């Protein structure tokens, strides 16, 4: 298969197709620019031969200065060349103040002084291959003007010329490839640094998104609390009042009132649970300890809660820690058949660790798509680590570590 595709590629590179000419033009266009830096450095010595120290120093240093100043314009000329002739967009390295001492600057110089000249010689080799190939291939046409050649020699030269003509496109392609690669690597942005910058950028953006989600959760909590919840309390209270004070109401009507009252109370309880799951106000006001003792107290099992958080973490991290405990407790109550639960939340330096251990039946598996999956996802959203040890038969321990500094 490889040979077939090679053949196909070779067909695309016959001298009479467009690609070799584009490559040749590209390689050749680089030559004057690529020799530019060296030309500047050598120029004084070609026209002037200073012998005393100061002029020698001037002859040495002045061109260096010129090259230093020309390096960036020359580099952008190369980038323009890539864009104009190959459609290859090479963005300039990130601009920074003090650009003469950056690492990007040394890469630019490396292109001008090392890679450039080598590529220029390559480009000249391509031109020689074309011109020489053409000259040799056509040797029969002007053999009369040359010293006498045997027919065999003419044939051999012609064959060699044809071979050169066939090889020239490949040579042109190789030089074009190397040149383009050199421009990308040496004159473009540094990939490692670029990636680093992107990672920083993405981390920042993600932190923004996570925070925004958290702020949104708090906003919804507040809206529910200030709006719907108050109305519901008022409604339930009025129904309760009606239930207590109305007299002489037909039994059917009273039954409706009683039912409505009970439902309003249930709705209130549900709303309270909903708000608790969103972002409880107590978490914001009084921190993890208070918020966690609130949910731990509602678990119908003996719970041991230890919270040792000398410094409060950011509200987003606290929200994740709260969510972890809340979700883990829900799982314990629903599935674990445990007789007791231990919750520990500690902060050591910049790591907040949360562990929820029960003595239940074990066998919890995050891959089965329980609440554990969402829990892991929420933990990872702040770069935390999530571990669960839950052998069949128990006990189960969920451990989460959250960095407090993003």
């Amino acid at each position: 298969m490889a040979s077939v595709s090679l053949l196909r590629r070779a067909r695309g590179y016959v001298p009479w197709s467009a690609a070799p000419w584009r490559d040749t033009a590209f390689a050749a266009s680089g030559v004057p620019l690529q020799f530019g830096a060296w030309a500047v450095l050598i120029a004084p010595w070609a026209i002037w031969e200073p012998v005393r120290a100061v002029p020698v120093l001037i002859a040495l240093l002045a061109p260096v200065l010129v090259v230093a100043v020309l390096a960036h314009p020359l580099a952008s000329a190369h980038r323009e060349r890539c864009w104009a002739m190959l459609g290859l967009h090479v963005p300039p390295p990130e601009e920074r103040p003090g650009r003469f001492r950056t690492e990007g600057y040394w890469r630019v110089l490396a292109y001008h002084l090392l890679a450039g000249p080598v590529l220029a010689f390559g480009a000249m080799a391509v031109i020689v291959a074309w011109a020489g190939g053409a000259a040799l291939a056509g040797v029969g046409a002007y053999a009369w003007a040359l010293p006498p050649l045997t027919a065999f020699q003419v044939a051999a030269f012609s064959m060699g010329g044809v071979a050169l003509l066939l090889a020239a496109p490949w040579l042109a392609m190789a030089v074009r490839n190397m040149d383009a690669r050199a421009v990308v690597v040496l004159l473009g942005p540094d990939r490692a640094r670029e990636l680093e910058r992107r990672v920083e950028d993405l981390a920042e953006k993600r932190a923004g998104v996570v925070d925004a989600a958290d702020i949104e959760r708090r906003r919804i909590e507040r809206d529910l609390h200030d709006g719907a919840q108050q109305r519901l309390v008022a409604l339930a209270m009025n129904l309760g009042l009606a239930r207590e004070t109305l007299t002489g109401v037909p039994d059917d009507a009273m039954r409706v009132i009683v039912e409505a009252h009970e439902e309003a109370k249930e709705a209130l309880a549900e709303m309270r649970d909903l708000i608790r799951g969103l972002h409880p106000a107590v978490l914001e006001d009084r921190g993890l300890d208070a918020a966690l003792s609130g949910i731990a107290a509602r678990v119908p099992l003996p719970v041991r809660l230890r919270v040792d958080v000398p410094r409060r973490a950011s509200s987003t991290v606290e929200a994740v820690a709260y969510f972890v405990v809340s979700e883990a407790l829900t799982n314990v109550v629903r599935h674990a058949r445990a007789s007791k639960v231990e919750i520990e939340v500690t902060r050591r330096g910049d790591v907040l660790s949360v562990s929820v251990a029960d003595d239940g039946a074990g066998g919890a598996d995050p891959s089965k798509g329980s609440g554990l999956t969402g829990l892991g996802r929420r933990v990872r959203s702040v770069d935390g680590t999530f571990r669960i040890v839950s052998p069949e038969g128990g006990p189960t321990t969920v451990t989460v570590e959250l960095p407090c500094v993003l």
Partner: protein
Amino acid sequence: MRIVIAEDSVLLRAGLIKLLETAGFEVPAATGDADGLLAAVEEHRPDAALVDVRMPPAFTDEGVRAALVIRRQWPEVALLLLSQYVEERYAADLLATNTSGVGYLLKDRVADVPTFLDALRRVAAGGTALDPEVVAQLLLRRQSDPLDRLTRREREVLGLMAEGRSNAGIAAALVVSESAVAKHINGIFSKLDLPDAEGDHRRVLAVLRFLGGGDA
């Protein structure tokens, strides 16, 4: 009985006024913030104040702080705090100075009109009314001290005592006889080392020990 109300939700405030007036209370003032509350208490010297914990401007614990001021300046005014969530440390703050005439309930409880009015009357009469959720949180915290010696039932009884209920009320809540409740209470007194020297005060002492960790 005269009661002032501090509740920032207009709807709920109107509802509470109606509720209290229907139940035969007098409501000389109803305000929406802590400053208004203090002014109203100063002006009307009510028997009790019904206070929302979360009020403007910061919506955190203005109600608790105002309540502490009232406790200091007008100790005769009973306080019933209402909150969206219950936090046992608010309760501990309130109970630190004096346990009589203090209550702390989840806001939803107002929907249960008879229970709510009962709690309000109890508080106004110098008793206590703690939300079962506060009590549950207190239980969670106090697990590692002498209270460990209590049986599960005794702890339930102590919890209900802390809520402010009488023996009859506890008996009804646990569906046991009143004499069984009395037996449990005696068990609590002996386990908490409260000798029968000061009569009924032991009840308060037991609750205080339960709430404060033993140094009361």
